[in-house]
């Protein structure tokens, strides 16, 4: 009967898509895990004692970017499974790893450039050597990654605040996280997932503000410049 053939076709199609989904989920878990490791690596380098904070940032950023090239290789490998309309069909399977990747790359980028990585820059990273994207980067995933970034920036600001140059870095982070939070708030009504994450971003911002405030209060009783304070402290701790 002709329509039994049709169902045979459907069976094949379902099985193919299911297997594809399973293999994408596996790749997605690998990418998420690698991206998280990059974030830890960045914190690790930034927590080392260093004479030149700006050189330290640069070194961290470069190490991070280098490791993220491994992640890029996985994306390059799975791109065939995401060609044309397959990407959106299986978007849910790889959305978590895209967000974690954006979080990691934007963190590494911030350490190297002191700015937020742009949407197009991330899309460019997710492209082959000729600049052809492996697949379209969904704006939602990019924005969610940025929202998560605020948490990592908060950790960076807090744990480095007593180090040479740490107060200055915390102040700069405060500015960029505040901007990020304000702008993401504007996007939030359009993107459900960002909306859910913004409460955490607000907490992170408040933590940074409190930390910066504490440094101001702490030094307010003394007429000393930042450098002299740094100097006194680094000799004693």
């Amino acid at each position, binding site marked *: 009967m002709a329509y*039994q053939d049709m169902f045979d076709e459907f069976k094949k199609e*379902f099985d193919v898509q299911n297997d594809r989904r399973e293999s994408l989920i596996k790749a997605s878990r690998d990418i998420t895990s690698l991206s998280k490791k990059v974030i830890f690596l960045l914190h690790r380098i930034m927590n080392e004692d260093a004479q030149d904070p700006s050189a330290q940032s640069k070194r961290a950023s470069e190490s991070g970017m280098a490791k993220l090239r491994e992640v890029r290789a996985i994306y390059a490998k799975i791109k065939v499974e995401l060609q044309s309309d397959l990407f959106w069909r299986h*978007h849910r399977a790889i959305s978590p790893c895209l967000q974690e990747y954006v979080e990691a790359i934007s963190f590494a980028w911030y350490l190297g450039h002191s700015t937020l990585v*742009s*949407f197009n820059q991330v899309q460019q990273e997710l492209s082959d050597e000729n600049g052809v994207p492996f697949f379209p980067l969904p704006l939602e995933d990019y924005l969610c990654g940025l929202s998560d970034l605020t948490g990592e920036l908060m950790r960076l600001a807090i744990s480095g605040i007593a180090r040479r140059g740490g107060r200055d870095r915390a102040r700069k982070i405060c500015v960029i996280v505040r901007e990020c939070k304000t702008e993401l708030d504007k996007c939030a009504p*359009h993107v459900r997932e960002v909306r859910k994450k913004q409460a955490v971003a607000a907490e992170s911002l408040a933590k940074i503000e409190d930390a910066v405030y504490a440094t101001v209060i702490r030094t307010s009783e003394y007429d000393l410049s930042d450098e002299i304070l740094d100097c006194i402290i680094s000799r004693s701790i």
Partner: protein
Amino acid sequence: MDSHWDYVNGLLEQDGELREKIREQVADLDKKARDMAGILDKIHSTPSKSTSRVTPLLDAVRPILHNCHETSAALAAIVPPNQFWRWKDMWSHSIRTVVYAAALAEYLANGSLISLERTSETLGIKEEWKDRFCIAVEDYLHGLITMVNELSRLAVNSVTLGDYEAPIEISLFAKNLFAGFTKLNLKNDLLRRRFDSLKYDLKKIEEVVYDVKLRKLTAPRS
């Protein structure tokens, strides 16, 4: 830096406008779907499918099915290339009802199962749109299950209205369709749950056939 966020906001607005345009077309498709469902509901009080009584219903449904061509074309024009799966949840519910209407109409007219290709044709969906607007296999299957749900009611109501042959035809048709579904490895999703419900429809239809056969209300088959 502002331009960075401006750029992002620009993209968001584009998506928002796209969504709005799709919503309009879907509202239209949904209206057509509900109209057809309303008409086909009358089959339960007009069950003698073999006679001319079914013709007026089909005559009422067909022009609406044909009008779906426009909506299909509009959606194919709005959805960007390769983004079919991004937006399809917006019209899944409506398209399933439309598939149901087309499939039931086909069964009533010719006693045969409409194929996915034939359904696409009926709705004026072109092969080359498949990365923008087409009927996903799942939606087609949902439509067929809805049809069987109604056919089990029809089997019952046919007998009530004195047509003792209809249940037997329905039974054969539904059994074959069920055999097709059995081939599929389904995920634990809505489709699987609805497939489970299909078994009950089949059982109901079979019970009607039992009743009819056992009461010898129908002539024995040669």
